[in-house]
């Protein structure tokens, strides 16, 4: 004799993923991404890609690479199935631009991005801009996010850009070994600044999936995805029509 509302099954309002670091040398991770796009993403009204979907991006002319073209095509197909797709830059793939957006049928978002889901306000960022303790990175970021620098970089031939990026990635790997765990996480003051916009934050970048609670404030951190190396990692965040936020592992089960 139940008068409780049977408003299930429900469909997600939005799904969030980040930090897939897609690259041709990691085929299992790419497969997992394609499976997610065909099996999970269609259940939602919107998909938010919150940065570092690509391991690197040398410029939209790199769409000519079959691997990249396939990813754009899969995103486009998702959009054609009625899911709105949104893309935010990461610290690796910040050169993704209007050319890719058009090919993939998605909308580029600036950050921070404030959105409303079922009446709940959520602020979205990739997370790298909040690692304010990493002074070297913040200086690098200021340089490479400058439109003038980007225009000058994109004017170089694609092969040259790829060579420069390969060098940068190698430099980043060795620099990581030296950095303390602290500065590779978001800084408290930066988090507080974001919370001024909304009680709820969703971000990636740190590869430290968690839900951080603090007096009614919540900060959800997305996992990175890795299926070609141990340990296997991945997952997403979902928001339903009532604004409830859940975290999910790769097989879909809720954490």
């Amino acid at each position, binding site marked *: *004799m*139940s*008068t*409780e*509302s*049977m*408003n*299930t*099954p429900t*469909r997600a309002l939005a799904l969030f993923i980040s930090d897939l670091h897609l690259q041709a040398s990691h085929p299992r991770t790419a497969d997992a991404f394609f499976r997610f796009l065909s*099996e*999970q993403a*269609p*259940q939602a009204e919107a998909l938010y890609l919150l940065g570092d979907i690509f391991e690197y991006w040398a410029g939209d002319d790199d769409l000519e690479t079959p691997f990249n073209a396939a990813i754009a095509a899969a995103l486009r197909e998702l959009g054609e199935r*009625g899911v709105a797709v949104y893309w935010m830059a990461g610290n690796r793939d910040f050169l993704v631009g209007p050319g890719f957006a058009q090919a993939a049928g998605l909308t580029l978002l600036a950050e921070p991005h404030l959105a409303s889901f079922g009446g709940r306000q959520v602020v979205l960022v990739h997370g790298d801009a909040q690692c304010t303790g990493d002074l070297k990175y913040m200086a690098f970021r200021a340089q490479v996010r400058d439109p003038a620098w980007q225009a000058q970089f994109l004017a170089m031939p694609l092969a040259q850009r790829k060579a420069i990026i390969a060098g940068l990635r190698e430099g980043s790997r060795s620099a990581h070994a030296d950095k303390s765990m602290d500065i590779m996480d978001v800084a408290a003051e930066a988090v507080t600044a974001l919370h001024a916009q909304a009680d709820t934050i969703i971000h990636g970048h740190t590869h430290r999936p968690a839900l951080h609670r603090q007096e009614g404030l919540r900060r959800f951190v997305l996992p990175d995805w890795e299926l070609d190396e141990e340990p296997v990692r991945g997952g997403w965040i*979902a928001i339903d*029509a009532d604004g409830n936020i*859940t975290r*999910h592992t790769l*097989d*879909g*089960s*809720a954490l």
Partner: protein
Amino acid sequence: MTTILITTNQGNIKAELDDAKAPKTVENFLYYVNKGHFDNTIFHRVIKDFMIQGGGFEPGMKQKDTDQTVENEGKNGLKNDKYTLAMARTSAPHSASAQFFINTKGNDFLNYPGQDGWGYAVFGKVVEGQDVVDQINNVKTTRAGMHADVPADAVIIEKIEVVQ
């Protein structure tokens, strides 16, 4: 295999129920069919290209009482493919009683284990009248009190009966 006929004001829908794979769900459903529970109920929750849900309210959104629930048989291997019938429920896995839904799209994420470790139990599929399901899928919906996704013009289930 038991076959049922759903007579609606939009047309008829015939469905085969899988007593082999979903014995408890089919038995529970037929319990409600045979006592006439579904007569003069409505598809009260229609979300386009997701599912149409009914069997719980009379026209005017008056909820009908139910007197038994059924164990969740979501792990029976049947999938929430387009035009399959499955049981609606609350977040409690074994809370399904009479309300059911017809998938109007392949909804893989509803399959066991689903979002909650249980998924939604599929117990049958439409074999005739897919066009009627499509028509209901496309009806204009509105809010009615605290209920969202309610068809603006009532989609009435006149009766459900066993035909074979």
